[in-house]
């Protein structure tokens, strides 16, 4: 089973890296670029076959390590 976890900054948390990317895109001549927010993607292979258990495990992984829930949200997708 393959899963993808997306970690993004919560609304209201400043993202200086996203801001720098936003400016760089404008500098390259891409007009009409609004706010850019940078995040992280984790592709995780699992040996589990039970989708519900896998989802619960993945959420626990996010809470315990992959995301800092003080500043980040996460989303879990199972392929």
């Amino acid at each position, binding site marked *: 089973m393959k899963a993808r976890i997306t970690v993004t900054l919560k609304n*209201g*948390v*400043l993202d*200086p*890296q996203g801001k*720098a990317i936003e400016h760089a895109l404008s500098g390259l001549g891409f007009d009409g670029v609004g706010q850019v927010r940078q995040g992280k993607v984790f592709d995780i292979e699992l040996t589990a076959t039970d989708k519900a258990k896998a989802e619960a495990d993945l959420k626990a992984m996010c809470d*315990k*390590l*992959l995301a*800092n829930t*003080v*500043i980040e949200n996460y989303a879990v997708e199972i392929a």
Partner: protein
Amino acid sequence: MKSAVVLLPGLNRDRDMIAALTKISGRAPATVWQTDTEIPDVDLIAIPGGFSFGDYLRCGAIAARMPVMRAVAEKAAKGVMVIGVCNGFQILVEAGLLPGALMRNSSLKFVCRQVKLEIANANTMFTRRYKPGQIIRSPVAHHDGNYFADAETLARLEGEGQVMFRYAEGTNPNGSINDIAGIVSEKGNVLGLMPHPENLIEAAHGGSDGRALFEGALGIAA
């Protein structure tokens, strides 16, 4: 007074911390490794600066999940004093021993310079040798020192006097909210700060403004 220093792969200020504690307390600190599950009986545990585990994932994130940090948390719960400097501060927030998070500097640049710090609360074990509002100098060297906490947490920190150090006189090097440079836990025994007081403890360092922090924590006469 006895102290211990936590060692983790990728830290690079551990020798500075050991040298400072040895000079100030008159005895070498014990050292504990990442896999250690017990910490000897000490009065102060120090987590030095550096780049533990290459700062992979998030600064301090991997270190915070190592067995030694469970031992640190147990000691902290019993009231033992803990000080985390720079990466040590990042590790303490990742471990949940201090609130908030440390994010990339707003300039996106690594900053390595001397800043001025205001003693925001002189009524703690760590800051009792300073005067309230006193301005001291301290080196900083970090890429991720931009302290962030949600409005509710921030209000609590400010209301309870948990902000220990603030960047003074427009020297905020990282965009940290409310100019916060260092905070202490609710019980007052866990301190995290981005600046490096251990690097300003004797004339050879160009000053000794950081010395009083360790003297206060260790209960040593100035």
